C-alpha cells in the first residue's frame, strides 16, 4: 500500500505538485492520468525516491521513503520515462547488474533473470547491446528491470510512449499480466489505454488530484444523458415532427443532407431515458428508413476533458478518435464492423499493413520490428484484431 500525504514539490516559483493526497490499495492496476506537465512524472519520481519532495510524506507499506529508503525501495520496481539502460551492456548483463543491486541472492539470480526475460519476451535479444535495441525492446528491458526481484509494487512512467501500435498492444499485455500479485501504477496521457487496462483511475491536473475512482465509477459519476445520432431517408419536417412528439427527448438538431433525401439528426436524451425503440417505431410509422443509428455514451474522454478543463479542444480531437474504445466499447464496435461487412481478420491485415507502411522509414530497419508485425499478422485471435483495428483507427 502506498500512502501519499500532503505532498508538495516546488521548483523555484513553479509548483509542480500541490498538496497531493492519495492512497494506493494492493492488487489493483492504477492509471495515473493527466495532461503533459500535470506533475505525473514528478509524483512518480518522489514516490520511488529519485527525487525529494519539498514537503509531505510518502509511505510504502508503512516505510517512509526518506527515513527508511532501503526498506521502501525494496518494495518498488520503477521504470522511469526514459528506460534507464546502460548502452554498452547487453540486456542479460544489465539485468544481472540490477538484480545484484536489488539484493537477489546469487544462486537464484540467473534463473530469476531468465524467467523475467521470458515474461517480457526479450530472450532472443539478450546478447545484443542495449544501444542497438529498438525502442520497443528497450522499453521491455526497462519493464524487466522493474519486475526483477518480484517487488509487490511496480511503477511505470508512460511505458507506451513512442512505440508503434503493435508494440503498444504487447506492452499492455505485459502490464495486464503483471496484475496478478502486483500493485501496478502506470501513467499515461492516452485515455483509451488507461480505461482498457486499469481497474482504478486517478486524474491529476496542475499538480492536484482531481478525482479518483474505478473506471465505471468515474463514468457513472459524470454521466450525462445519452446522445443519439441518426441518419434517415425522409424529409426534414417528418423527422422533426417525430422527434418533437417523442417522450424523453431533451433537445435535437436536424440537418438536411443536400438533395440526396437523407436527413441526419443529433438527439440529446433526458437522463436515464432509453428512447431507441420508440424512436425506430415512430420513424418507421412515418415511412422513414433508418440508415444509421448510433448511441454515444458519456466517455471517459469527456469526463477527462471536463475535469482537466484548460486545453479541452486538444482533448476533444483526441477523444474523437477514441470514442469507439471507451466505456462499453464493444457495443459501438460491433455495428461498425457489420456495416462495413469486413471481418476482423481483414481489418487486422489492413491495420498491420498500414502500420508497416507508416513506420517503415523508422522501424523497419530493425529486424525485430518486422518480426513483431508478422507475429501479429499470423495471430488468429479476433479480439487482438479488433483492438488492433481500433488502435489503427485512433492513432493513425
Amino acid at each position, binding site marked *: 500500500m502506498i500512502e501519499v500525504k500532503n505532498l508538495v514539490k516546488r521548483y523555484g516559483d513553479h509548483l509542480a505538485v500541490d498538496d497531493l493526497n492519495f492512497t494506493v490499495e494492493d492488487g489493483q492496476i492504477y492509471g495515473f492520468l493527466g495532461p503533459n506537465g500535470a506533475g505525473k512524472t514528478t509524483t512518480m*519520481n518522489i514516490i*520511488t*525516491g*529519485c*527525487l*525529494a519532495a519539498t514537503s509531505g510524506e510518502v509511505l510504502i507499506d508503512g516505510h517512509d521513503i526518506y527515513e527508511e*529508503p*532501503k*526498506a521502501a*525501495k*525494496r518494495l*518498488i520496481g*520503477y521504470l*522511469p520515462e*526514459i528506460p*534507464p*539502460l*546502460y*548502452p*554498452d*551492456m547487453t540486456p542479460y548483463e544489465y539485468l544481472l*547488474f*540490477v538484480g*545484484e*543491486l*536489488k*539484493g537477489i541472492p546469487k544462486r537464484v539470480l540467473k534463473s530469476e533473470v531468465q524467467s523475467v526475460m521470458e515474461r517480457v519476451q526479450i530472450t532472443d535479444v539478450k546478447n545484443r547491446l542495449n544501444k542497438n535495441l529498438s525502442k520497443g525492446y528497450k522499453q521491455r528491458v526497462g519493464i524487466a*528491470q522493474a519486475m526483477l526481484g518480484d517487488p509487490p509494487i511496480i511503477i511505470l512512467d508512460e511505458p507506451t510512449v513512442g512505440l508503434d501500435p503493435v508494440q503498444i498492444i504487447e506492452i499492455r499485455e505485459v502490464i495486464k499480466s503483471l496484475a496478478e500479485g502486483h500493485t501496478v501504477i502506470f501513467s499515461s496521457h492516452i485515455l483509451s489505454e488507461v480505461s482498457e487496462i486499469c481497474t482504478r483511475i486517478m486524474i491529476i491536473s496542475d499538480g492536484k488530484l482531481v478525482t479518483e475512482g474505478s473506471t465505471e465509477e468515474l463514468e457513472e459519476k459524470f454521466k450525462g444523458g445519452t446522445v443519439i445520432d441518426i441518419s434517415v431517408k425522409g424529409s426534414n419536417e417528418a423527422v422533426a415532427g417525430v422527434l418533437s412528439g417523442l417522450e424523453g427527448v431533451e433537445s435535437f438538431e436536424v440537418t438536411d443532407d443536400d438533395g440526396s433525401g437523407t436527413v441526419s439528426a443529433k438527439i440529446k436524451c433526458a437522463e436515464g431515458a432509453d428512447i431507441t425503440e420508440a424512436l425506430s417505431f415512430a420513424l418507421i410509422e412515418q415511412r422513414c428508413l433508418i440508415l444509421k443509428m448510433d448511441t454515444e455514451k458519456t466517455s471517459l474522454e469527456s469526463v477527462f476533458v471536463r475535469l482537466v478543463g484548460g486545453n479541452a479542444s486538444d482533448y476533444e480531437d483526441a477523444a474523437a478518435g477514441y470514442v469507439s474504445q471507451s466505456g462499453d466499447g464493444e457495443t459501438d464496435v460491433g455495428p461498425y464492423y457489420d456495416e462495413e461487412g469486413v471481418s476482423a481478420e481483414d481489418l487486422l491485415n489492413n491495420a498491420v499493413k498500414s502500420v508497416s507502411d507508416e513506420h517503415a522509414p523508422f522501424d523497419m530497419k530493425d529486424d525485430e520490428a518486422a518480426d513483431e508485425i508478422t507475429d501479429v499478422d499470423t495471430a488468429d485471435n479476433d479480439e487482438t484484431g479488433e483492438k488492433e483495428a481500433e488502435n489503427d483507427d485512433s492513432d493513425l
Partner: protein
Amino acid sequence: MTAIYKREFKAFFRNMTGFIYIALFLIVMAFLSNVINFSNRVPNFEYVMFYMRIGLIVMIPILTMRSFSEEKKQKTDQLLFSLPVSTSKIVLGKYLSTLTVFAVPVVISCAYPLILSKYDASGAISYGASYGTILAFLLLGASLIAVGIFMSSLTENQIIAAVLSFAYIIIDFLISFKILTLPSSSTASFIGIVVLIAIMSLIIFALTKNSTIGWMVFIILDIPLAIVRFIKPDLLEGGLTKVLDNISLFDKLYDFATGVFNVNSIVYFLTITGLFLFFTVQSLEKRRWS
C-alpha cells in the same frame, strides 16, 4: 556496491579508456625511465615517478569525466536512485573502480626498482625512496580522482566535467612550483586568507543549500584568524604563500622524491580524498533535494 564496482570496472575496458590510459602510462614511464635512469645512469626510480605526476594533469580528467556525467545524461542515475542502494555506496563503488584502473600501471611500476637494481653495481639504489614515492604517487592520484569524480557529479556534460577537474588540477600543479610572488605583509595575508575561506564557505553553501552552515564555516574559521591578526600580526607574515603551498597536493610529492617519508602528507592525501567523496555524495543528494 560490488555490483557497481564491477560494472564500472568493465565499462572502462569496454569503451577503451582503460586500455588507452594503461598503455600511455606504461609507454611514458618506460621512456622516462630510459632517459633518467639509463641514459643518465641514475638508479633513482623516484625521479621517474616525480616526473610522471605531470601526466596526471591529463590522465585524471580523462579517467573521471564519465563517472557521473554520463550516468545523468543516459538517465541511468534514476535507476540507481530507485534501487535499494545508498548514495554513498554508489559513489564508493565508482570511486574504487576508477582507483583500481588508475592503480594497474602504478602496480606495474613497482617492478622498475627491482629491474634497476640489476644494473646498480654501486648499490646506490634506495628502495625506501622508490616505493615511498610510488605509494605517494598512488595516493596523490587517489585524491585527484576524488576531485575529478566530484566535478563529474556537478554536470551532465563530460567535457565540462573534464575541464573543471583539469582546471583544479592545473592550478594545484602551478601552485606547487612556488614561483608566485604574493604580498607577504600581515594585512595582505589576512585579506587573502579571508578570501580563501569565503570561497570555501561558498562551495559548502552551494553543496548543502544551507546558508547557516555556510556562514558558520566562514565565521568559525575567521574568528581565530582575526584574533591572531590583532594579537600577533607577525605570525601572518607571508601567511598567504604558506597556506597556498600547504593546499597544493602536487607539492607534497616533492618530499617523497627527495627521500623523506612525510606522514603528514599521507594524511593530507587521505583527507582530501574523503572530503571530495563526501562532497560528491552531497552534490548528488542535493540534486534530488533541490
